[in-house]
């Protein structure tokens, strides 16, 4: 294990160790599935919150989805979280792993370069030459470890791996064991109860691969959607913004109207329709809540260090460009259409929209 004193980001089980301890205490007498640290009900409380126990809510918008995800992990099927980028798929998988196994670190981070070694095992070649294929010489993958310890393994961005690599999972998932032919004919490790895989995948992004039907059959699919409720998204962004700003929170004034402007813009562009019902052209760029939080955060910093400490539509406008202009040149036209037709109208009536529009003009001319 690498030794690190300071980290930008703590794992879920570190961040919420208090809450996990509380839950596990309250959960003492409940039946737990084999290999699980908490009962399914407590896992649900950990994610959806429980006021009386002082457990915070960590996932928003779709409670039944969490139920389905927990129950899927109870069975033999794996869980596949799909959906647009930035909809908190990875966060949900991390929370589930932390609550069920107390460990969210058994993670395969899928890329185009992920190879068989990352899924099964590889060898410490010095030891392999010295001792032959022994357990000491074997370096197990996170999946190997998860099977041995009976824990949840996370497989991030599974569709970014080559299809033949993805398919390594097929037999692991159905037989729940892994052969090690190098160590002799009967050498096999069998998964301990509690082992399962949570995959996260993006099905439509550029540079992703198709998943085979055989692999799909071994997973239950859950789609994580962007948040549709405006007020709720505003609340969420405010909360996360405060978290990100940390000590600065007290020094930057963040008017709710500005956050509302941000959320309105995002929701309208995402849904392709204004609140008044007019049709819009949706940009290809990802307009997720996470992106909105990033914009709000960057704008708040801008306001603090370069402005007068009050977040305005102007700063939002400056940051928006970085989110929208990623790879599709047509997005410029779509945003320009939005600015010319929707924002300009609103700018006539509201100060915040006006400052947003004025600043936008310099970018979207």
């Amino acid at each position: 294990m690498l030794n690190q004193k300071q980290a930008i980001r703590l794992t879920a089980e570190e961040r919420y160790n208090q809450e996990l301890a509380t839950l596990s205490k309250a959960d003492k007498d409940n039946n737990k599935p084999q290999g699980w640290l908490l009962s399914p009900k407590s896992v649900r409380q950990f994610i959806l919150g429980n006021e009386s126990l002082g457990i915070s809510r960590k996932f928003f918008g779709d409670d039944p989805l969490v139920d389905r995800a927990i129950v899927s992990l109870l069975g033999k099927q794996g869980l596949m979280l799909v959906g647009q980028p930035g909809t908190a798929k990875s966060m949900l998988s991390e929370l589930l792993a932390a609550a069920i196994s107390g460990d969210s670190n058994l993670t395969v981070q899928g890329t185009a370069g992920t190879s068989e070694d990352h899924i099964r095992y590889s060898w410490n070649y010095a030891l392999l030459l010295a001792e032959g294929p022994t357990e000491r010489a074997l370096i197990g993958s996170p999946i190997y470890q998860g099977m041995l310890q009976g824990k949840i393994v996370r497989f991030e961005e599974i569709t970014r791996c080559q299809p033949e690599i993805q398919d390594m999972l097929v037999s692991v998932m159905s037989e729940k064991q892994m052969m090690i032919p190098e160590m002799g004919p009967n050498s096999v490790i069998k998964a301990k109860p509690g082992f399962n895989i949570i995959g996260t995948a993006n099905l439509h992004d550029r540079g992703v691969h198709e998943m085979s039907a055989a692999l799909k059959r071994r997973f239950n699919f859950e789609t994580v959607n962007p948040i549709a409720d405006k007020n709720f998204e505003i609340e969420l962004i405010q909360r996360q913004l405060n978290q990100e700003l940390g000590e600065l929170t007290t020094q930057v004034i963040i008017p709710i109207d500005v956050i509302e402007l941000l959320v309105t813009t995002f929701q309208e562009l995402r849904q392709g329709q204004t609140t008044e019902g007019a049709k819009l052209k949706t940009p290809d760029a990802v307009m997720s809540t996470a992106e909105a939080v990033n914009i709000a955060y960057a704008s708040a910093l801008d306001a603090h260090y370069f402005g007068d400490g009050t977040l305005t539509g102007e700063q939002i406008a400056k940051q928006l460009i970085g989110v929208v202009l990623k790879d599709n040149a047509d997005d410029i036209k779509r945003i320009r259409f939005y600015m010319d037709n929707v924002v300009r109208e609103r700018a006539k009536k509201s100060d915040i929209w006006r400052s947003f529009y004025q600043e936008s003009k310099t970018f979207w001319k």
Partner: protein
Amino acid sequence: MTISHSLLPERLSKAVERLQALQREQIYFAPVRHHSPACSYALKQLIEEVEPTHILIEAPSSFDTILQQLLDSDTKPPIAVLCQTEKKLTQPTELPYTTEDNIDNLNPKSNIYSAFYPFCDYSPEWLAIQMAKKRQANIQFIDLPWSLQTEQSIESDSERNYSLLSETYLKHSQYIQRLMQKLHCRDHDEVWEHLFELKDYDDIANWKTFFVDTFIWCAMSRLDYTKESLIAEGSVQREQYMLTAIGQLKKSKPQAKIVVVTGGFHTLALLEGLWQNQLMLPKRSDVVQFNRQQKNRVEDQTWLMRYSFDRLDTLNGYASGMPSPAYYQTVWQTMLDYDKATNKNQSWQVYRQWQTLTLLWEIVDKLRQQSKYDNSTGFVALKTAIEQATLLADLRGHIGSGRYDLLDAIQSCFIKESMDTTRSDFWILVRSYLSGNQLGEVPTGISQPPLVNEVYLTLKQYRFKLDDTNPKLTHIDIYRKPEHRQRSRFLHLMTFLNVGFANRIDGPDYIHGQRLNVMFEDWRYAWTPMVEARLIELSQQGMKLQQLAISKLQLEAKQFIQNSNDSVSLFAVEQLIQAALMGLDDYFNDLVDNFANFIETDGELDSLIHCGHRMLYLWQGQTFLQLKVTSTLHTLLTKIIKQSFFLLTKLKQHENEQQQQNLKILLSFRDLLNSLPDELDAHQLKQDFYHNLSRLQPELTQAPLIRGTIDSMSYLDAYLSQQQLEDNIKINFSLGTQNEQAISYFIGIMQCTPELVIHSSILLDSLDQLLLEWSPEQFIEILPDLRYVFAQLNPKQIASLGEKIAQKYHIVDADLHFQQHQFSENQLQKALSLELLIMKHIKQQHLSDWFKY
């Protein structure tokens, strides 16, 4: 999962005490949710235990008239009572210049308000009626007559399907909103299912606590309402009526054991009105008002009709009762099976598990029938789905899985992709299975309005399949089989009356003259309760569909004539075709007899020509339409044409737009003449046509467009020689004529015969001459028109036109091509290097400035 009583507002905890106090007085309230199996099950236990002498039900008191039909053993849910009432409309303030009969004809004097009251097997109200029958208890419907309810709550929107079992209050309740969040449910239906439907059977059977819980649930939602809004939507008036009904019964029969079945929303008011430290009996004034209101029953008309699960599900979309009727039918059946089982050693969990298994298997079976879902609905998927449903129920604290657990399991296990790319028909299939399409039965020979029976029997006779509500296709051989022709006529008749039974997908369209050579008609039809409802509605206006159609035609005619006298012949011929399609021979013949009048009074050339075309369609379809009036049609066609001759003077109008329109009419007129049947003396008529036109010539000086068209038409039909045409062209382009006029004339010719410009060199020369004289401004002004005119030529014609012009201006053929061959590559290279050299020299001499401009 019971609702905690400790934190109740004082008003509610008092009300709960009242509920119990009234039970001691032998008045038992059953606050129900409509179409809830759990409520029915609890009500069943209540009635069995209490053995009431009277059962009071929240339904308009006018339902008394069909009570016997409801009790008939041949009546099988799903059925509905259609309740209708006719309301006089307040007359709009009279305008000074309209006479009284004018208003009579134009505005309907009354509106019909209709509402449905559906029953299915598991509706508490249905159960109450059936149990009362078994136990010989009295049944009384205690709600305000429908005719009085309409006064309060409904706007003049008579088209909507109104349900008497509205439960919109549940959707808006803040209490339920908060419960939703707390229990992690997605909507109020899920909260309801979570709290009530998924209790264990024995808890539901314990009706005393069960109905206290349902009461609190509904009453908490009611607390969100202000007294004013309750008055405005009519609840207060209805509750007053119900109160008096209950009180009066108790007053006259103090020993009566009464069970009151109402929607839980009203229970709070009823409890508070009935018990204030003692039983409150109605005051004299209340009784007087009650009696007066009760007399309004005669204003209501009630009909028992078959209903279907899919209709019920849609109606439930308006928040009146629970969704997915087929699902809850199964739930109810399972409850009854458990209730009937004598040895209860099989626990009820087993029953619910069995129910989940069956439902999921049946859904999968349905999905498997569609080959595209083969992949994801194998045995393993089914097994995982059953496990998933069971475990979900467990996690959510349900005893056995409910509807949402089932849907969630289906989503988890059968969908192997992102939700937004899932085929939408997947969910339609699943939902339609859960909603079902079972159709109810009503006793034969009940007082269905005669019209409904007649239509039903006629359709049966024509061998339409009417046993369920699924849409079906029929392929009608309209030309060869007389019986099929009858079917077609009947379907057209129903379509005309908006019965909603069938709509035509394909076939000849005589009204618009399209696809007239098609030999078959294809119709999609379905016998739905809405068809019955519409027929019941229609039956108030007449006894026979034919008669109704005739009066509708007559009414339309009357309104049309009152509104305008223009294009009357076009309107008449439309009616004629409509009547012919429906086989209304008498009306058709009458209309044909009078048709000459319409032609004579019509002053619109446009309408007459259209009328002529349509008359031709009719003539073409006479075999199919079985018309025996061929000679009359001939006479009428001739008459139309002669009348049109008379109206040709209209062509002298000189405004540009009118000229354009007239041009179209003129061309259409010529088309009509060209397609006349051989039996008519077409040649003579054509001669007359051109004769009339030439007679018109002197008056057309201001209408050059028309002049051009007439000239080219006459030339085409050989009523004008080449020489005459060229003379005319010369005159029109001659010096002294205005340029605009000349160009209009040219356009007129081109609109009719674009190819003339290629064949007649005189036309091109004249145009060329004209162009030479124009200033650039004039040319620019007229350019769009010219472009439009030349755009009618096809590429080949354009090419040959180009050649002609080239010849005229002695341009070599080769110049017209993009590729030029007279220079070799070498020559080009030489020229370019020479140019470079010169430029260089100029620069050297510092003469560059001289060549700038």
